[in-house]
């Protein structure tokens, strides 16, 4: 909790104790711990003197502001139409097989979460996905095990 308060205070120092600081604060929390908990939302609401519902509304709007516990590495497979036509489903299946989880789940060791995302702007290089902030393009099902292997052994 102290960590969250530190993040909030840093962002408030930079952006002011106003509603416009909300998004940077939420991004800061996600950067630090991958997701925003209920308690974090209350913390943010109190710091900015806005309602907790307001914070929830914003946090739930953005796909990348997760409010459930995620693994250390969040894999986001693009589900937009271009990637879909380029074979997104095969990539997804390969990921599900490699990680032994379904879309939307997290591995037992809390290492990987598998999520779908809307367009990430890589339509010309699809199928594409992100692992945390790193993009992977021109994916093939064959490449998936080696990519995952790399993260497992980090």
């Amino acid at each position, binding site marked *: 909790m102290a960590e969250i308060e530190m993040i909030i205070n840093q962002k408030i120092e930079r952006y002011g104790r106003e509603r416009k600081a909300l998004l940077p604060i939420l991004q800061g929390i996600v950067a630090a711990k991958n997701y925003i908990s*209920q308690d974090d*939302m*209350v913390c943010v*609401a*109190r710091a900015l003197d*806005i*309602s*907790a*519902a*307001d*914070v*929830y*509304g914003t946090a*739930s*709007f953005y796909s990348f502001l997760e409010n459930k516990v995620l693994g250390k590495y969040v894999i986001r497979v693009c589900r937009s139409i271009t990637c879909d036509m380029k074979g997104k489903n095969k990539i997804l299946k390969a990921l599900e097989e490699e990680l032994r989880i379904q879309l939307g789940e997290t591995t037992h060791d809390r290492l990987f979460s598998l999520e779908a995302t809307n367009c990430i702007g890589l339509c010309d290089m699809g199928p594409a996905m992100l692992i945390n902030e790193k993009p992977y393009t021109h994916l093939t099902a064959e490449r998936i095990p080696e990519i995952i292997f790399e993260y497992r052994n980090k």
Partner: protein
Amino acid sequence: MSMISLKIDGQLVEVESGTTILEAAKKINVNIPTLCHHEDLCVAGNCRVCVVEVKGRERLEASCSTPAPEGMEIWTNTARVRNARQDIVSLLVSEHNTQCTTCYRNTNCELQNLAAEYNVDGNRYLSVLKPGIKVDTSSWSIEKDDSKCIRCQRCVRTCAELQHVNALTASHKGKDMKISTFLDLPFNEVVCTNCGQCVNRCPTGALTERRYFNQVWEAIGDPTKHVVMNTAPSVRVALGEMLGYEVGHRVTGKMVTAMRKMGADSVLDTDFAADLTIIEEGNELLTRLKKVLVDKDQSVKLPMITSCSPGWVKFIEHMFPNHLGHLSTCKSPQQMFGTLSKTYYAEQKGIDPKDIVSVAIMPCAAKKYEANRPEMNDSGYRDIDAGLTTREFGLMIKQAGLDFKNLPDGAFDSIMGESTGAGVIFGATGGVMEAALRTAYAVVTGRSVPFENLNITAVRGTDGIREASIKVENCLPEWSFLEGVVLNVGVAHGLKNARIIMDQIAAGTSKYHFIEVMACPGGCIGGGGQPIPTNAEIRAKRTAAIYEEDMGKPIRMSHENPEIVKIYEEYLHEPLGHKSHKLLHTHYTPRNRY
């Protein structure tokens, strides 16, 4: 302000620059349909039902959110506009739970009206209503049914702009977007004041009050039960709207007869309890003033704030839990009435209180919650068994098959049916303050307040916060400590303004001695249980009716109400006395702000 002229459907109209197309059209009585738009709220422009064609622009424009420039030519009624509107309404209907015949808002629903107007064909789009949506019935006051929500966000804007509570938000996005509380928790677990203003502004049946009228019918039909009904002051000036009268028409006499014909065993008046509140609250104020001014008692808090509005009480409990000492300990008139109906009334009438069913008819959604607060059982029973809204009551009158317009006027029963003009004006913002000043000034000086016809106009009106100062002069000997004191009073309505008042108190800069706060804009006449729709014009007409009712009353000061005099002689003995403390006063609960 510079004026501009534009043409709407070929008709020239002059308006101030900055006026929207919708407002300009209204000026020349061109009707443009709306859904997300509400006069009390900021522009949202999300439903697009109000689209019009603008000459020279390719796409249709939403008239609610488009300011009209000089020389604009607008067409509100072309085939293209009608088709677009029909499509928009059809799409909304395709996501809507169209079980209209079983809906509480059936025949009073803006979406239903538009669907009828545009003759929406059921086969135009597939129904994409999400399955398995559950109605949130967790709150005593408000029900939320997302299957009927069209996501216009009027409720979100109401809760944010008018009430500064922000209990509701738009969460998620796209097809998953919905109106949520924090984490989509049930209503009874979040910071909601139960004021019901969102219900008043919901165009459909997505937000409604929780209904209790069936339980009341059951009690009326049970020969072993003695049903006591009491009606709040603002019900009589709004009920007529549901029964064929124009806005602002008072229906007090017919309302009394209707209750009797419906089968109530006793028809009494909450206004009596309002008068009683004035005696208790007025004395509480004078006692606090004495303790602060003479005894220098640090533990006593000033300003004292009224506690009649249960939405306001819950607001302060959530938002300013450290300042509950400023609230008057007086129960609201509804709860005073409830307690007395099962003690004083039961005793006087020789009825076993366990057989009494006390029904309160209120302009309010929060009163339902208040009636169910755990501590509200000082009579030894639930003080109020059911709180109904004006809307539920109007519905019951229709169900009873009464020809309301042709009912003879009736008079309230006794005891606890007599009231004064001071009790009546509780229904409008500023009314409690005015009533309290009329009595307090008379008690302290032995003279009437120095205002023409007892009308303290400074505390009336629609400004969010109003104030007045009254110098107390030539006091009676026992009140000599107040000689020369200038009493500063403030009035706030709408929780947005209540928050301003409370921020001043929290900062230690409040200049007031006594403050009236009503949760709803306009006070009870604009309450969350009043007939739908609401807007500033409707509220002004109801307010005018309240003051008419006051002027028509032979007695206009609470302490002169003969039934009030009698209850103190025979039962309560003195204001703030032992019995009063047990029955008429209460305590408050600090709650979470988040």
